[in-house]
């Protein structure tokens, strides 16, 4: 494999390293455990370094996050914890009639939010993390996750609905059942 010369390394340091936090954050939320997240993020950065000659400018963060995501999926697959079969054909239900106030009470707790996010299928979790924590546009999310923008949009809508359900389920079971019957 090519060894990068000092100019390439300087470019890598300037373009890619500023996105190390983004890389770790995505890895942390896809992998769940912090220790795994560190190893995977490190491996992803190593891959990025190896493929850096193939990066010809453009959105450096999206480029790196795509590598991070692929590395995470490879690890998850290897450990048998990747389940992609279920979620995408599920029908999008109308919003349940839980008031914003109920949600505010249900979600005003970092731990509970974390658990609710971790409970989501990885495909939903990743669009939420990229959109809400990383501030990516639909176009960037589509590039990072290698799916069409339309799929990003419906995944995001479903992910938010799911998160909402998980959060309100833990505090307001009766309301949630009621919402299902509607």
């Amino acid at each position, binding site marked *: 494999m090519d060894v990068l010369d000092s100019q390439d390394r300087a470019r890598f340091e300037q373009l890619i390293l500023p996105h190390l936090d983004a890389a770790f954050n995505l890895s942390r939320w896809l992998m769940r455990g912090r220790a795994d997240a560190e190893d995977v993020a490190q491996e992803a950065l*190593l891959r990025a370094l190896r493929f850096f000659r193939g990066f010809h400018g453009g959105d450096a963060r999206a480029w790196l996050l795509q590598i991070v995501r692929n590395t995470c999926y490879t690890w998850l697959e290897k450990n048998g914890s990747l389940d992609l079969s279920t979620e995408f054909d599920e029908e999008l239900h109308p919003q349940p009639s839980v008031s914003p106030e109920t949600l*505010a009470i249900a979600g005003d707790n970092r731990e509970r939010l974390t658990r609710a996010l971790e409970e989501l299928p990885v495909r939903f979790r990743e669009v939420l993390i990229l959109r809400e924590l*990383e501030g990516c546009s639909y176009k960037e999310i589509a590039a990072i996750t290698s799916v069409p923008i339309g799929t990003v949009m419906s995944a995001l809508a479903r992910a938010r609905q799911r998160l909402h359900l998980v959060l309100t389920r833990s505090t307001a079971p009766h309301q949630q059942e009621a919402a299902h019957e509607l």
Partner: protein
Amino acid sequence: MSCELTPTVLHGYLDGELDAARAADFERHLISCSECVTALETQEKLRSLLQRAALYERAPLALRQAVQAQLGAPARSSVTPIRNLPTWRWLAMAATFLLAVLLGWRLLPLVRGNHGETTLASAIVDAHLRSLQPGHLEDVQSTDQHTVKPWFDGKLDFAPPVHDFVDEGFPLQGGRLDVVHGRTVAVLVYARRKHLINVFVWPTSEPDSEPVSGSQLGYHWVDWRKSGMELCAVSDVSPDDLANLHHLLVQ
């Protein structure tokens, strides 16, 4: 549930991803559809919960160092998981780091000029990295300049300028004391989108100066002197963002 609108429209609107015509259509729809109004409020609430909960997790220092080491060394084909590094290697790394800091401190005084600037920049980038570790960012956490400013009183022999620039997109997050080159300095913490900016402040007897900037380990910094204070802002935001904050601070 009677609204026939595709839910993705609501989410597209929420995310600012609709074009102007479709956004206007949706806003007209909101006038007559209370269901969508409630759904939109709920989604806005959900978003603010996610953003307020500080769920973003920054790269640990060990990861940053491991990546940096990889970048310095010829790229290897396998990863040494950082958590499996034997303790003595950590100790060796720590000792090397400490030695470098001591040497830097002993041999290179805090002076201007190219060499001095580079060491100062290193010390400040190091301090910035330290501050990003959990629990190290702020001693006083407040977005109110009238809380942050008095907090520094009695802790320092100078009064750092404390201003909030929330309207300009740089909300004040708080402040802390730090030590750079053996000197106690004030640090103001600003946010810029998802990123943090540390502004180090200490008194100087040197005349005012134009901003000098540079970057190191992927972090950018800009340093200047004004009215008896030297300020150095450091962050992973773009140099343009840092330049904007510099303009605000010298106003």
